[in-house]
């Protein structure tokens, strides 16, 4: 893609301690050269592994999460023919239905947009030092520390 050849693909990762609006972030990815936009949102579900969930909390090692997240979006900009990529991950207290993470990718064609979007969320889940603490309806609570080789969802 022209954008990649010119080395000017905007690639940005951020942590946010508060709820954020996707609309203005999406608008910044609009590009007259781009014919495709793929996005992913992770929402807080009302259950996990069959247990009713009441709410959750994300803790981050902020300094390392910011650098590792930025590395991931920059890897995506190199690996895929895209025109822009942005990811924002929440920290702090979240309720059912709240937006936990957003990834937006613009590209010339849809294949690269989908592939880069999937790459970013997969890598963020695997590599960025953020931990989920779930509170269950039965009063129990706990940190999620998935097995290293988790089955693909």
């Amino acid at each position, binding site marked *: 893609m022209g954008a990649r050849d010119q080395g000017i693909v905007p690639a940005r990762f951020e942590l946010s301690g508060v709820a954020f609006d996707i609309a203005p972030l999406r608008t910044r990815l609009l590009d007259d050269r781009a014919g495709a936009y793929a996005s992913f949102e992770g929402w807080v579900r009302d259950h996990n592994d069959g247990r009713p969930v009441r709410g959750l909390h994300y*803790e981050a090692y902020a300094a*390392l*999460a910011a650098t590792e997240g930025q590395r991931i979006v920059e890897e995506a900009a190199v690996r895929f023919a895209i025109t822009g990529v942005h990811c924002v991950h929440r920290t702090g207290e979240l309720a059912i239905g709240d937006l936990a993470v957003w990834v937006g990718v613009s590209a010339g064609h849809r294949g690269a947009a989908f592939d880069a979007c999937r790459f970013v969320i997969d890598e963020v889940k695997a590599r960025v030092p953020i931990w989920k603490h779930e509170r269950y309806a039965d009063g129990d609570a706990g940190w999620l*520390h998935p097995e290293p080789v988790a089955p693909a969802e």
Partner: protein
Amino acid sequence: MATVRLLYFASLREAAGRDTEAVDSTAPDLTALYAEVAARHDLHWPRERLRVAVDGAFARWDDGLRDGSEVAFIPPVSGG
């Protein structure tokens, strides 16, 4: 002897009962440092399940301790 600041997160933080502490250690590398810390705080995470970071960047377990650095033991992550 190096003085380092340790950071704990998530269940490691709960197990250690603190989110940070300063320690003086003669451990030759980060592997030995974690062994010392795990014994002192009764941490049950095997080192193989953790990653380690120094001054905000992922590091190798056989790296030596840098005096004045910040060391974090990283349990399996669950963002997204």
